[in-house]
């Protein structure tokens, strides 16, 4: 009887817990439907406030101080920040001048908000960084206090937060800010996929050549992953690094992934003096990945030497090298046949 009772109690507890769980689920579904996207009403309210404040639709003089206090109070909640961002985006696209004038007067408020968000959770900090990423004009000066506060978000950050902070700093166009973030990522051993880093750097709004120079000068003290990203970033826009990268390609103490990234640079930016080095690398039996990368770049630099080297190496055991040799050789032979038949 006692054991029966115990089983009933256990089952009863399970049932209660389970029903509670189900109620929680349904409540969450209902809540999320309401909350997931900012309602049109909220956005319309913000639009009305912005109209009033920018004087775009009325002649009433706005009260700047009151509006700033209002913003600080309301926008410290990420839900409101998102609705505000929708309204601000509307203002930006419909009334660009009013937007510029409005946002330039709000730098102090956005600086204070950055500080308020710095004390919030990672998810909320990421939300604010995303806001700055979308509206970099809110930051004002690229050397300003807001940049420093954004960099402080990297402390106790996750990958989303790091990415958005870097994205925000690139949108602002802050070279020291970007360099500081990369330094922090290196110092703390934080992970950031090199593709992700490269993509964010590519959105830099300022002079990319200057950023490239600055990052390359510091990249040797950073880990190989960051260095690869910097090289990939430079590869996307600058042909000026052909001479600079050459010694690093020849230096066997440089990490293979960094040398591979340099090889890919020469794939994008043709540079004939690199061909003998690439030919040598293509015949390197030690690192097959480097050999394959070198060979694939040589296919783009079809000089007589490179072709001869490839012909002599067509018996290599590495299939990737073989594959890369075979394709250009076939193209080359078909060209010859075509020329002969034309002659």
């Amino acid at each position, binding site marked *: 009887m006692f054991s*029966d009772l115990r*089983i009933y109690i*256990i*089952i009863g507890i*399970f*049932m209660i*817990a*389970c*029903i509670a*769980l*189900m109620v*929680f*689920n*349904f409540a*969450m*579904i209902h809540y*999320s*439907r309401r*909350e*997931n996207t900012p309602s049109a009403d909220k956005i319309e309210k913000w639009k009305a406030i912005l109209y009033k404040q920018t004087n775009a639709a009325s002649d009433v003089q706005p009260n700047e101080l009151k509006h700033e206090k209002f913003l600080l109070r309301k926008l410290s909640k*990420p*839900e409101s920040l*998102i609705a505000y961002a929708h309204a601000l985006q509307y203002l930006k696209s419909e009334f660009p001048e009013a937007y510029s004038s409005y946002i330039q007067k709000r730098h102090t408020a956005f600086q204070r908000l950055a500080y308020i968000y710095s004390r919030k959770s990672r*998810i*909320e900090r*990421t*939300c604010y960084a*995303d806001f700055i990423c979308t509206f970099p004009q809110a930051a004002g000066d690229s050397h300003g206090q807001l940049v420093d506060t954004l960099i402080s978000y990297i402390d106790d950050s996750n*990958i*989303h*937060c790091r*990415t*958005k902070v870097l994205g925000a700093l690139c949108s602002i166009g802050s070279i020291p800010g970007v360099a500081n973030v990369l330094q922090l990522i290196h110092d703390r051993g934080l*992970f950031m*996929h090199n*593709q*992700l880093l490269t*993509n964010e750097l590519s959105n830099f709004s300022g002079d990319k050549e200057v950023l490239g120079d600055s990052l390359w000068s510091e990249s040797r003290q950073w880990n190989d992953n960051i260095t690869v990203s910097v090289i990939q970033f430079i590869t996307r826009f600058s042909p000026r690094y052909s001479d600079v990268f050459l010694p690093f390609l020849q230096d066997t103490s440089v990490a293979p992934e960094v040398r591979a990234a340099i090889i890919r640079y020469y794939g994008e930016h043709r540079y004939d003096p690199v061909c003998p080095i690439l030919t040598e690398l293509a015949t390197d039996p030690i690192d097959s990945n480097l050999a394959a990368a070198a060979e694939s770049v040589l296919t783009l630099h079809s000089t007589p030497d490179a072709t001869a080297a490839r012909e002599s190496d067509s018996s290599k055991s590495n*299939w*990737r090298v*073989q*594959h890369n040799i*075979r394709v250009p050789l*076939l193209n080359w032979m078909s060209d010859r046949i075509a020329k002969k038949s034309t002659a």
Partner: protein
Amino acid sequence: MDFLREILYYVSIFFIIYLIVFATFSFFAVLIGAYRLYINNRMLKFRNKLDHDDLPVSILLPAYNEAVTIVSSVSSLLNQDYQLYEIIVVDDGSEDGMAQKLIDSFDMKPVNRLISYELACQPEEAIYESTVNGVPITLIRKKNGGKGDALNMGINASRYPYFVCMDADSKLQRDSLKEIVEPVFEDDAVIAVGGMILLSQCVQMEDGKAVNYRLPSNLLVSLQAVEYNRSFLASRMLMDTFNGNLIISGAFGLFKKATVIAAGGYSADNLGEDMELVLKLHGYCRNNNLNYQMRYQPSALCMTQAPTSLRDLAGQRRRWHIGLFQSMLVHRRIMLNAKFGLVSFFSYLYYLMYELLAPIIELLGILTIVLAFYMDVLNIGYMALFLTIYAVYGAIISLSAFSQQMYIQKFRISLWDMLKTLFLCVLEFGIFRYVLVIVRFAAFLRYGKNKTAWGQIKRT
């Protein structure tokens, strides 16, 4: 007689413990699943999303006699919101003209291309290539060798460092590739990611996006839909919390090519090649002390066709169960092995007791009830109450998992569908489960017949 009664007493204790452990597992699975979904939803709401689409990915479509669906499957893959991917279809010796359909539909041309046989597989007979909408498509015709063998060929031919394996009848949402690569951007240690599988008969697609979810009129498909939600969502999310998932569905999973090659690739003689690979990867990484993660990404959606007849369903589940048996047998060293941590002491034991041996244990339970009835030691009222409560409990768990699914995908379902779901959950947990028990038990009995054959269901 007393001895038999004593045995029955201990058997009943075993079953009560067995069911309570299962109930606890299901409860925690749904609870933890709900918490993780809440966090995921909060992250999405506050724009914590990476949204990058340039990790190079090769999509592998192994296929055998899929002439009916292959063109529409490949076409749907061409509309991905993703920058850098290729599609490789491996025709594993089809006899229904599948390759010709592909060649005609996508204007494919024969090419002379070297393939690196880093993983053993049947050699290629012909290779065709074409580019549609900027996406390279490769068709490789080879001798029949089974699904694992075809996947190995796909890996050998792939150009990119990550590959996605898919079934030939599977369809993706427009953003599925973008979603499934996200864990790789989040953590360098990620070597595999599993996507969420939904039944295509339940999902209404519009412009490459799942917009509505309805339970179809076919009862069998509806029951499978309820079952999929419980098993794919709840249990996998729980095991994901400690990197303990043992299955990444062959219908949609992403893998790091180098690690898969290093581990030895797919097994060609296993019906559960997807599970076998995951177990193999656990073994490879643990034995080499590698830091690794295998993640589950419920927002990466894949739609696959469910069998519509009991005969097809029985065939499918038979293959799955034999595959499970083969995989667990090959990797039996994982069991009770401290090196594998929770993978060994939780996941492996769970699959052993509640998946592999479940048909035997549950049939044994039914036999025990019959025996107890004959011996007049069965408290029928108590048993009926216990089983009813258990069925209702299971139905609530299934319903919770189902509502979570609706919550993730933001599907809106009607009140009628909700009531239907409630009914189906009871039916699934109270009856359908036992039908599958018999099917899976039969799989044990018929083990050895067509152990490596491709699964075929009637396509619509």
